[in-house]
């Protein structure tokens, strides 16, 4: 009963945004039913579609958590993109420099380097917040642009693969590749890591004293600090943890697929991560489920662009509308 009550507004929001988008698609001269069936069912028609969805899910869930963990503490991390890129750069650097190391050393090294680099990228705004009380929203955003310039430098600089047309580094050592769970089409082990991380984050926030302090800090930092919680430390912790998760996703992008750092690897995961986190209303338990749904839409969107020539942005607008309607459903319930 309560589950129905809780998911009903979501379903209505999805329905409303699809109707709005359907009208728009019809006006553009396309068949909305064909478009929607492509968007919704591409993931489930073929094994390949499903595996594509799982591969999308990995960075999406990690970037969404990189947004919702600081949000639990009342802080906004809009810097997942920069943290992911930093993680990718760190992982690529280690993977290329130590490319001859065997897998049982190199893979953990690559992943750790990514986590560490992302965490450091998250530590910068955290430190500015801790030390100078500077609003984290702007610093995290601005650091994205710094990271964009940095990845351009790395992918066109000393580590560049001269054979590639697009700015890319050379491949990392074989030992740093994520093992495959399914060979054809390839599905790498990152999916397991992502699910474990999401579960761990849920247990941390919902069951532990540290998680309670994170929630209390987000609920009212002033009160929390009066009753003995070191809120500024919680801010730093949450932002660094977020950076680490985004860095992890960057590292896993590098350690899978074509096993190199490609400029543009960050895609639009940041914005999608924000949308997922906001649709989930910051609830860390809901994030993986929403992330999966968005992954389905994204895979469907690419298929729709390929087969029906409707730009992928259409689906992006649908996602933003879902968010808006989910938020509106709160207002309706309040009345």
């Amino acid at each position, binding site marked *: 009963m309560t589950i129905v009550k809780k998911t009903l507004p979501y379903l209505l929001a999805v329905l409303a945004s699809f109707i709005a988008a359907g009208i728009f698609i019809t006006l*553009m001269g396309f068949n909305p039913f064909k478009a929607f069936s492509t968007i919704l069912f591409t993931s489930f028609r073929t094994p390949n579609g499903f595996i594509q969805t799982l591969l999308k899910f990995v960075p999406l869930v990690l970037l969404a958590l990189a947004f919702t963990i600081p949000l639990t503490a009342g802080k*906004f991390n809009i810097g997942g993109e920069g943290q992911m890129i930093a993680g990718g750069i760190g992982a690529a650097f280690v993977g290329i420099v130590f490319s001859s190391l065997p897998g049982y050393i190199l893979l953990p090294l690559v992943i750790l380097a990514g986590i560490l680099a992302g965490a450091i990228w998250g530590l910068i705004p955290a430190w*500015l917040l801790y030390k*100078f*009380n*500077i*609003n984290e*929203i*702007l*610093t995290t*955003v*601005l*650091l*994205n*642009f*710094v990271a964009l*310039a*940095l990845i*351009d*430098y790395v992918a066109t*600089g000393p580590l560049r693969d001269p054979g590639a047309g697009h700015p890319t580094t050379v491949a990392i050592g074989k030992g740093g590749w994520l093992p495959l769970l399914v060979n054809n089409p390839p599905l790498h082990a990152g999916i397991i890591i992502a699910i474990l991380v999401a579960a761990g984050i849920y247990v941390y926030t919902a069951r532990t004293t540290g998680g309670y302090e994170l929630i209390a800090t987000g609920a009212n930092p002033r009160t929390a600090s009066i009753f003995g919680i070191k809120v500024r430390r919680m801010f730093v912790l949450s932002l660094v943890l977020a950076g680490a998760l985004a860095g992890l996703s960057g590292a896993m992008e590098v350690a899978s697929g074509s096993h190199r750092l490609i400029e543009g690897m960050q895609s639009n995961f940041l*914005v999608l991560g*924000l*949308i997922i986190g*906001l649709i989930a209303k910051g609830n860390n338990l809901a994030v993986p489920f929403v992330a999966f749904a968005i992954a389905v839409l994204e895979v469907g969107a690419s298929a729709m662009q390929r087969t029906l020539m409707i*730009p992928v*942005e*259409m689906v*992006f*607008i649908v*996602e*933003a*509308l879902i*968010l*808006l309607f989910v*938020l*509106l459903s*709160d*207002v309706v319930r309040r009345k």
Partner: protein
Amino acid sequence: MDIAVDFLRLVLLSMVPFVLAGQGTMLGGRTGVFNVAQEGMMLVGASVGFLVSYYSGSIFLGMAVAMLSGALFGLALAYFTTTLKMDQFVIGLALFFIGIGVSTLLPKLLIGITLTPPLIRTLPNLAIPVLSKIPVLGPILFNHNILVYFSVLVSIGLWYFLYRTQKGLELRSVGEHPMTADSLGINTSSMRYWSTIIGGALIGLSGAYLPMVYSGTFTEGMVMGRGWLAIALTFFGGWSPIPILLGSLFFSAVEVLAFRVQVIGSFLPYQFLQMLPYLATILVMVFTFKRARVPRFLGNNYDREKRSV
């Protein structure tokens, strides 16, 4: 000497997006509405400003529609926050997302994907008679496109309005303590709506400046964080028109400097120069954020019937 003149001229030329977006943000903020959708709104302004200019052949119609698009976003922001009392930051982000989507969807639908992007004629310079003939100062100050003059006039106009008129006093009171304003019969909602709508129009126009003056075309993500920088600028300028105008000069100078050095070439890879505006902004925030004067009620929604406990 010539290099200096050229540099200063470019600083004035490049300050416009910062001035317009900064003043637009400031105006809404002065009634308590904290807009964070600038990046998206500027993208939409750039996109529709370009498209309308391209199809109509009139750059002024393009500007008008860009302002209209910004005003619509402002209206949406005002409606969701003031009437529906939804979280300003979250709504701002949602509008930012929609802005990203709409700004890329429209050109793709209308023009399609082409190898050679269509161009519009950029905004012509309007030399002010007599004044533009003054040596040194003339070319720096008085030989610019119309939006350079407009942005300065808007800043001065806003200052006069806020600090020298009754309506301006009332508007400021709404951003400081809306309950007080309300208790004295001031219509807080209408103040919030109008300031956000007009502010939105300025932000939309600031986005249109990019294709109309810099590139002649629209490219994805061409705002390059200027919307976010505008927020930092507004804090830097203490939410006050004249300091924001002066701050824009600084933000613009950094941008021009990074660009100039890139062109001339230096020992640093150009990517590190590209980082400069963002790093400089963070540095500026370290020194000015603590002292920044901010409207008391910034970012909050006022609900008359919510009982204060």
